């Protein structure tokens, strides 16, 4: 197991360097002078501009700038936003909200997704299974902002069950609607994954043995079928948690959830290139770390992975 962890961590290093280099290069290729942009419509004092350029290392060659940036990442310096606030500070304020939203969303995914998937798999080919499959296909094809608007319009504006947008406090209760919206697409995938896995497991010899020992159906389903079907689902959930942490941009923007995603959303809408890039970099890093942890979790759950090549 230790060898496996070491190998995976070592493999992640070139990917980490490559992704940051790629994003950094794209920023470098961005048209326009960021220093001139800072002055807005006012004239630029060349001495001040040179001073700022030196301060932000913009007078250095590309590769030196990149190395300074990487060095900064290791001491927790993620760069500065357009308004002059350190990105690390913004993250500290917004990240807890995003984590809360992601956890709530994950909870819905587990309860609804695994529940429907299990029933579907046990009743393969019956009407419940067929309608669950069709519904999941529909939810997979609905773009997230369409789901968000339909839910916002129907549940919040028409029925008044929830507030259409979230307040600055972002209580658990207010986050329920955005969390459901975020969860819908993943629920569709979890239903299909659980269903396939349950159908596979229910055919195994040990399930027949369990029945022939005289165990009740409920116990066989809970202990023998469900438990053994959950490995791919748990891995999917772990990957999805990473996606939820970084991929809530649109949903957070629409519901005005004060999280990382909305900060990015607003920076995109206002066209603040450098802020967008520093946030995207941080999100990619989070995504990489979560993926690495998922691989390790998978190896811990399924011994075949760590002994395979």
């Amino acid at each position, binding site marked *: 197991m230790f060898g496996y962890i070491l190998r995976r961590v070592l493999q992640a290093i070139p990917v980490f360097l490559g992704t940051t280099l790629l994003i950094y290069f794209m920023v470098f290729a961005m*048209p326009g002078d960021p220093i001139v942009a800072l002055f807005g419509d006012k004239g630029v004092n060349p001495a001040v501009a040179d001073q700022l350029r030196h301060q932000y290392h913009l007078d250095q060659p590309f590769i030196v700038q990149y190395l300074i940036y990487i060095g900064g990442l290791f001491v927790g310096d993620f760069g500065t936003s357009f308004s002059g606030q350190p990105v690390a500070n913004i993250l500290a304020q917004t990240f807890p909200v995003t984590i809360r939203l992601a956890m709530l969303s994950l909870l819905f995914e587990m309860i609804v997704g695994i529940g429907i998937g299990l029933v579907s798999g046990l009743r393969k080919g019956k009407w419940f299974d067929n309608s669950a499959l069709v519904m999941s296909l529909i939810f997979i*094809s609905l773009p997230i902002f369409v789901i968000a608007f339909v839910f916002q319009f129907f549940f919040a504006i028409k029925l008044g069950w929830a507030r259409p947008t979230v307040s600055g406090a972002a209580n658990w209760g207010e986050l329920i609607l955005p969390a459901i919206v975020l969860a819908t697409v993943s629920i569709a995938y979890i239903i299909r994954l659980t269903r396939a896995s349950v159908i596979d497991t229910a055919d195994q010899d040990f399930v027949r043995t369990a029945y022939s020992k005289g165990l009740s159906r409920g116990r066989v389903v809970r202990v023998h079928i469900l438990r053994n079907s959950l490995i791919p689902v748990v891995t999917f959930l772990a990957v999805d948690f990473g996606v939820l942490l970084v991929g809530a941009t649109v949903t957070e923007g629409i519901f005005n959830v004060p999280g990382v995603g909305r900060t990015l959303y607003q920076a995109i809408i206002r066209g603040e290139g450098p802020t967008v890039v520093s946030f995207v970099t941080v999100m990619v890093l989070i995504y990489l770390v979560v*993926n690495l942890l998922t691989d390790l979790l998978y190896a811990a759950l399924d011994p075949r992975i760590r002994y395979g090549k």
Partner: protein
Amino acid sequence: MANKQTHFVAPENETPLMAVDSVTGDSQPSNLWLDAWRDMRRRPMFYISGALILLVIFVALFPGVFTAEPPNDKCYLSNSNAGPMWGHPLGFTRQGCDIFARIVYGTSTSLTVGILVTILTMGVGIVLGAIAGFYGKWIDAVLSRVGDIFFAIPYILAAVVVMSVFSHNRNVVVIALAIGIFAWPSTARVLRAEILRVKNSDFVMASTAIGVSRSRILWRHVLPNSIAPVIAITTMSLAGAIVAEATLSFLGVGLPSSFMSWGNDISQAQSDIRTNPMTLIWPSLALSITVLAFIMMGEVIREALDPKARASR
């Protein structure tokens, strides 16, 4: 003990093996593509999604058949947010433009981006995946790590950055490139895995034995036998690209508002969600139905090409 038999000798009057073989020799050899085609034609979902896709293609090619006037010619503010009337079945936007005409003319944008992205991801993914899987060794190691780098960046986020770089000249090709360069690794991974499986087959060894060159073995023998899983995800990735374009346009980093695009329409309508929700609903519906059609078709093709899925149905 001189006549002790040490090995079995077949009696002379036994049925010749030829007779047994000739029984199966008459029937059609099984063919993955033919079987898949037969299987698809048995499924109602194939006809529903096929009809929808044909409709979408027809609307994209000949928008003039469906509306009398181009969408931005007659936008009168006196019609702002007006309901449906004769000749304008879906009503008007806040700018007084005909919603139906905008949707009809937006079809080709979505479809073009989808097709361009699919060609790009398939082209790059197939070439790199095939080379990585077939030649192995350091080529595989390098290509796989490069793929990991592009795969690690969620492609909406990546496309946002690319589109920010091209903030002054955005068009259909630029947005297709922005989505495509970060979407190819999944195709490459699927193909690489399949080629790793196929390249150890006997027919590959036979080709090597009769002196066929390595590259000819790859492109003429191994690739055609490993392409099925890639074909299975093609329509799915087309649907994904259409959603990605709409999402980017919705975020305001997609196509400029001079382009007719469902994402732009939805983005502009979002402030009217309380006063005139139908301006938001109609383009969303058009987008969702198109994506659903392609995903359904992808599902049918995937199940038809996978004998295991076919058997378990």
